[in-house]
């Protein structure tokens, strides 16, 4: 049966809704979070310290091998000079537009580096984007 006073009915409804939204008393953490953290598996780095050691050792071996192959520091200087000359040739070949940029070898190196990094981390970048922006 309808109430003859619709305004009273609407305000009763609003009041009931307000009562129902009375928030429960928040539960004290009482160590709950600490227990959850203690139950987590150990962090990835701690799970296999040997993996990090192997990677570092392999990187050191690779650097030493490359150094021996190019003939030590002197060979490294010759190599970088050769790369500089070739990058300068690329710059000259691409025309006056590149002359507007900083030295050609630096621009080209930065561009290639940026593209490589974006490609290497594309899945991580995509995932972070979705977390922040839905």
């Amino acid at each position, binding site marked *: 049966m309808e109430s003859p006073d619709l305004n009273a009915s609407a305000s*009763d409804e609003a009041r009931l809704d307000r*009562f129902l939204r009375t928030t429960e008393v928040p*539960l004290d953490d009482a160590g709950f979070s600490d227990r959850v953290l203690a139950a987590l598996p150990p962090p990835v780095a701690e799970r296999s310290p040997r993996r990090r050691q192997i990677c570092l050792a392999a990187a050191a071996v690779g650097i030493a091998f490359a150094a021996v192959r190019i003939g030590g520091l002197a060979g490294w200087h010759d190599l970088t000079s050769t790369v500089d000359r070739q990058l300068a040739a690329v710059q000259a070949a691409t025309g006056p537009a590149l002359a507007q940029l900083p030295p050609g070898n630096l621009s080209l190196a930065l561009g290639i580096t940026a593209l490589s990094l974006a490609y290497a981390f594309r899945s991580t970048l995509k995932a972070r984007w979705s977390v922040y922006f839905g």
Partner: protein
Amino acid sequence: MTTDAELIARSRFDDDRAAFGELVRRHQSAVRQFLRHLTRGDAALADDLAQETFLQAHRSLARFQGGSQFPTWLLGIAHNHWRNHRRRQRDTVEYTEATAPATEAPAGRLVELRHDLAAAMSALSADERLALHLGYQRGLAHGEIAALLDWPLGTVKTHLARAKEKLRQPLAAWNPQT
């Protein structure tokens, strides 16, 4: 204040345990209270299920795409754990008490209202209480409740309407006009 999105990103990509701990602290009350409603007041069981919920959430952070609110996603995991537990137990749990606050509530009119509300809600069915908890105290929309509990949308609306109707009379005493 650091947002949930930032904490989730740090937990997921940097395995930042402090960030995940902050997420747990922020949402533990909501998850534990939700589970206490499901377990009909069994606080120990609710806390066990809540711990499993957060451990599962940590393992599954990569699957949270940010489409739903993080608290709602957590409640979905909690509900799944409770359903799995019930399947394993295959027992009915005697209703012992309404959800009770873990800390002493502040004195005054608010605590009287909460007491009257709790007493009135004891007359509702478990499903009606659960719908009210999610709809009014967690602020979920009807569609979100339906998706979370795997109920038809009509069932959600029916439970809410019946629950409100049953509470109207007992709470009428709080109407200053009567």
